[in-house]
């Protein structure tokens, strides 16, 4: 009601979406759910994957999205983007390069009130890319040296903030544009305008970003009742200015509304799913354990399965702390043969049978077979179950044993390795119920301690005193592996096996950074090199080199590459993909274009 006609709402050149199966009609409600608080970053997956450029549905490359088009120069130093003329925010205000400028000046590069969270791809060698506004719809980003993955950075889930900062809205909170901004902030209970401004754009963290229903958006749906405004459910309705149409010319999205129920516990979500209250879901509930239950419920829940291509590098990766504060342990864990021996002591098939119902085959954290980057040695070395050889190898390193048959470390203590594990990772916990006897057989006392997630974050990700932990993710193919090679190169805080070395990669002058040994430094150099490369072929070659070196270094070891996962979707949902990657970079199912989902 009271809206201008459709032509005026659409940009001059709307993005035409070819539906996955067939065009639909507008209408209906998408019934959805979020589990617990603090999980709002999930929203990117369902209603908010609208970067300038996005991953293609098959994750083979990048295509324009909000940007009408983009160009890269030869050596990947200049990126030129063209916006759509007449593109409007959900309140009807135009979306122009002014929004880009505002974000760049007041959020990205303002050292006082800005935020650079997740924006490291805007930097090369510590310097920000330069923004050049050409006209209302054109801008350039210029880097001093090559930045091969800039466009990928934009397409990666959650990272592109250019499409999430409406300048005309945010200006009212900025002291430069509104001299009364401080009073405004105080009247809303904040100390100064900076706090309110940060709150309003919410770009530092998704939880805050999505709690604002007042901020205009480019997304297909906009919140009328944002999560947090009501603690029971959140509602998003169609954005009348959305810039996409289908092949019939119908403006997207098809769904009128998305209703998220806020569910406290995954088990309840499971029940709701079984009951048919959820239209599409793969997070939280689609575990191997729940599969039979969901399978049996297909009839009553009126849903079908779809397949998720798992993209993690392994189902579980053993991370021994290679930067341990305990000298003796540090030396031992840094002994490659020690890690290899431990790897040999694991009966992977048993674990796969018990925990994954036999789905999967023994493998180290690696690239999936069939991918051009596949490295067989990396994938299969030391995956055989050979306790005798393990014992032999260990006898060389730690020959002494105590009365109970456990080995003694060089300091004469029983060789105990305590794995600290985030208790929400139930498959890890299950596997660790079976692992201790296997290690005991080679004289190593392996114990597990589960803990609350925050504690795990503090102790493991931000601490250095833990012996070991287990973790997951990373990537097992193509571009993803290049963007997240956490198990092959210690490059970010996700490489939990070497917190000091990773810090050395990002900020070597940090007092907690540890200078790694030469071969690791070389590996980090290789990766830096890769990031500067724009040419896919060269990227590939460089990545292969990294993987080869990783196979030599054998920093971590795992159990198996993950078997395919699954999700459920209501039988009457149309245009969803039957097979798609499961990743947070390709924010499943975001790139499969939820705006063109509809229900019959």
């Amino acid at each position, binding site marked *: 009601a009271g809206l201008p006609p459709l032509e005026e709402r659409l940009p001059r050149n709307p993005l035409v979406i070819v539906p996955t199966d067939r065009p639909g009609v507008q209408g209906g409600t998408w*019934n959805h759910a979020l589990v*617990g*608080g*603090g*999980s709002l*970053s999930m929203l*990117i997956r369902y209603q908010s994957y609208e970067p300038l450029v996005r991953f293609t549905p098959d994750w083979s490359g990048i295509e324009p999205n909000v940007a009408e088009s983009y160009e890269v120069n030869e050596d990947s130093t200049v990126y030129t983007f063209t916006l759509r003329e007449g593109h409007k925010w959900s309140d009807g205000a135009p979306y122009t390069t002014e929004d880009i400028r505002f974000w760049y000046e007041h959020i990205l590069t303002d050292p006082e009130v800005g*935020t*650079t969270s*997740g924006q*490291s791809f805007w930097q090369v060698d510590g310097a920000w890319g330069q923004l050049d506004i050409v006209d209302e719809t054109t801008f350039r980003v210029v880097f001093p040296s090559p930045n091969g993955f800039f466009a990928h950075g934009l397409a990666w*889930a*959650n990272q592109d903030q250019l499409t999430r900062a409406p300048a005309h809205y945010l200006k009212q909170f900025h002291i430069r544009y509104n001299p009364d901004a401080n009073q405004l902030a105080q009247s809303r*209970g904040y*100390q100064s305008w*900076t706090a309110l401004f940060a*709150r309003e754009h919410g770009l*530092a*963290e*998704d939880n*805050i970003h999505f*709690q*604002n229903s007042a901020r205009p958006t480019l997304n297909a749906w906009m919140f009328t009742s944002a999560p*947090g*405004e009501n*603690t*029971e*459910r959140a509602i998003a309705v169609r954005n009348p200015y959305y810039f996409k149409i289908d092949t019939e010319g119908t403006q997207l999205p098809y769904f009128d509304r998305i*209703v998220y*129920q*806020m*569910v*406290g*516990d995954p*088990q*309840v979500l499971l*029940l*709701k799913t*079984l*009951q048919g*209250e959820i239209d599409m879901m793969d997070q939280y509930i689609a575990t191997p354990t729940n599969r039979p239950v969901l399978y049996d419920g297909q009839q*009553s829940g009126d849903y079908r399965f779809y397949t998720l291509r798992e993209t993690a590098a392994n189902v579980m990766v053993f991370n021994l702390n290679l930067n341990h504060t305990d000298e003796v342990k540090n030396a031992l864990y840094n002994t490659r043969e020690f890690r290899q021996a431990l790897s040999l002591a694991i009966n992977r098939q048993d674990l796969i049978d018990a925990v994954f119902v036999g789905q999967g085959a023994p493998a180290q954290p690696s690239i999936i077979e069939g991918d051009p980057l596949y490295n067989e040695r990396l994938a299969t070395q030391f995956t055989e179950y050979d306790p005798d050889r393990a014992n032999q190898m260990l006898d060389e390193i730690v020959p002494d044993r105590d009365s109970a048959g456990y080995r003694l470390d060089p300091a004469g203590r029983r060789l105990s390795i305590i794995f600290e594990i985030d208790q929400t990772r139930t498959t890890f916990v299950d596997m660790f119920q079976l692992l201790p006897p296997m290690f005991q057989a080679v004289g190593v006392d392996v114990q597990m301690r589960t803990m*609350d*997630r*925050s*504690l*795990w*974050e*503090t*102790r493991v*990700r*931000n601490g250095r005193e833990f012996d070991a932990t287990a973790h997951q*993710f990373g990537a097992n193919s193509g571009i993803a592996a290049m963007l997240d090679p956490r198990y092959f190169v210690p490059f*970010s805080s*996700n490489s939990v096996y070497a917190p000091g070395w990773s810090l050395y990669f990002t*900020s070597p002058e*940090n007092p907690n950074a540890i200078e790694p040994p030469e071969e690791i430094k070389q590996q980090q150099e290789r990766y830096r090199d890769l990031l500067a490369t724009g040419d896919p072929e060269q990227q590939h070659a460089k990545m292969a080199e990294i993987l080869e070196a990783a196979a030599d270094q054998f920093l971590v070891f795992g159990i198996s590459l993950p078997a395919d996962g699954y999700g459920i979707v209501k039988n009457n949902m149309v245009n969803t993909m039957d097979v798609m990657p499961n990743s*947070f*970079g390709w*924010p499943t199912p975001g790139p499969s274009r939820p705006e063109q989902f509809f229900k019959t």
Partner: protein
Amino acid sequence: MWLYALKRLLLMIPTLFGISLISFFIIQLPPGDYLTSLLASMADSGQTLDPVEMARLRATYGLDDPMIVQYFKWISGIVLRGDFGYSFEWGRPVSDLIWERMGSTLAISVASLIFVWAVSLPIGIYSAVHRHSIGDHVATFFGFLGLAIPNFILALTLMYVSYRYFGQSVGGLFSPEYIGADWSWGRVWDLIKHLWIPIIVIGTSGTAALIRILRANLTDELSKPYVTTARAKGLSEFNVIMRYPVRIALNPFVSAIGWVLPNLISGVTITAIVLNLPTAGPLLLRALVSQDMYLAGSFILLMGVLTLIGMLISDLLLAALDPRIRFT
């Protein structure tokens, strides 16, 4: 008596300060702060925050101040301006959040409280009067069954049963189609269909305790001579029991009334989480786990106030119930 009440009211002020101070520090006991827990949940979806950014956010939230400074900021806001601060996680004033949930919290707590009392008082009295009868044993058995099965599992099982055999929407107080709808008969019926599970879940464990305690105390009172006197007047057995021994046997309940009020907030948290009930308990739990300290602190302060009031009421009631008890 009133002087005593007045004295107690005055004593509440320092106690409350003590409570707020202690709780505020306890809230901070877990390592890290709100940002750490935020980071933990972000890591789940592959995001990381770099340390510089963390430091900046910390400053915005005031998390880099010493704890005592944070405490004074918070408590002085409350005392001077009635401002409870805002919730990091929900980005809203704490008081809004708390009040929003108070309605349903009160409704559910009071409903289950009434249910529990309505069920357990008669059963407890019956059990005491007819000790070792079949009825008594059955009540005992079910009571302990209710206690021995964790609420969590009971709720799950009931929900599964209701899904499996009645095809009913589970969790929450309404089916999705009635959430936010206007009141109608359909909605009321829907509410009733949802309410039985929480009431049973909360009821089984709550009633068992009440029944057993009432039974124990009443058993002791029943053989007192004054009961015989009441019988000699020709009072019906029901009146004899209700007017005389029950009154004394209620003493432990009245002592426990102090907990009824704070329980309105934090009680049955796990049940509420599983059943997706929009009560304050889960919110408080989340606030505590995610170290959303102003929200958690204010909840606890509120609980403290309610505890103090509850205890005062309980003490006054104790004296009213049994004139031998005199407070000075």
